[in-house]
């Protein structure tokens, strides 16, 4: 969502939130405390102990405002077109295992036989291309696929076609540098 890290939204119905006991104590979650009794504050305060994540809340609100000014379907279509372009370019090269579908997603996930994904990742990093390399918190899936991990390039609405092509170019350079076995 382009917001800061460490912030999220918990949406709950009042009657459900009413039965939740505070899991943390701190400022504002309590109405009155004495040696004899404790009275908790009303919702949502009693579940929001202490100082809130102020900069996170402001940042997330700004991200929501940004997204609300955009045509979300157009953003999705753009991201999908970048991913489909990269897929078709890399698929044509051969020697690259593609795990993401040809169309309909906003990312590509791949591996290269005989080349370690962390090596690919390091080269992309050295060229200023940010991707994810690893098991993506899906170890059983990686085991099922028979790979140590995959390299994943995710596109955002602000990425350009030029950047998508640069990712392909740098990846192909990396394979060239690393695949000598």
């Amino acid at each position, binding site marked *: 969502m382009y917001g800061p890290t460490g912030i999220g939204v918990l949406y709950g119905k009042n009657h459900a939130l009413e039965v939740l006991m505070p899991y943390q104590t701190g400022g504002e979650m309590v109405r009155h405390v004495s040696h004899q009794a404790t009275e908790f504050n009303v919702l949502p305060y009693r579940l929001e102990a202490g100082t809130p994540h102020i900069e996170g809340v402001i940042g997330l609100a700004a991200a929501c405002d940004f997204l609300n000014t955009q045509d979300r379907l157009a953003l999705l279509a753009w991201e999908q077109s970048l991913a489909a372009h990269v897929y078709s370019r890399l698929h044509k090269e051969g020697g690259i295992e593609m795990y993401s579908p040809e169309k309909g997603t906003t990312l590509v996930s791949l591996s290269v036989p005989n*080349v*370690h994904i*962390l*090596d690919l990742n390091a*080269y992309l990093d050295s060229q200023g291309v940010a991707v994810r390399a690893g098991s993506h918190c899906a170890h059983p899936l990686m085991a099922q696929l028979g790979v140590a991990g995959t390299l994943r390039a995710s596109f955002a609405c602000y990425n350009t076609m030029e950047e998508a092509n640069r990712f392909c170019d740098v990846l192909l350079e990396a394979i060239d540098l690393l695949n000598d076995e």
Partner: protein
Amino acid sequence: MTDSVNIKSQLQACRSKEETFKALVTLSKTLPRLSAEKKTEDNKVKGCESAVWLIIEEKDGLRHIQADSDAKLMRGVLVAILSLVEGKTHEDIQQMDLTAELGKLNLSSYLTSSRTNGVLAILKSIQTA
């Protein structure tokens, strides 16, 4: 294996992440690979993103280390690490500030944080074994 002075000058000459990457790829080719039967679970270093195996032996009071990894860049890093500690006594190795030594070889800024953690695990194994 390339001698340690040579390894040092090669890495110190690097002026960018890309140059360091290429130097490590070149160095990785000088590392003798371990046979499959030596890549045991016991020899594996815990805490590395890529698989790393270390075999540390002592002969006449001097440490001799064999190492391997499934990732090429890590093999390059291992060549650099081994050049710092190979053939030294355990006491000498323990007294070295290996993190600082690797920093002088342009390697600390190059490695991503989770990989650095892997390298730290390797250094710890070498210094405590």
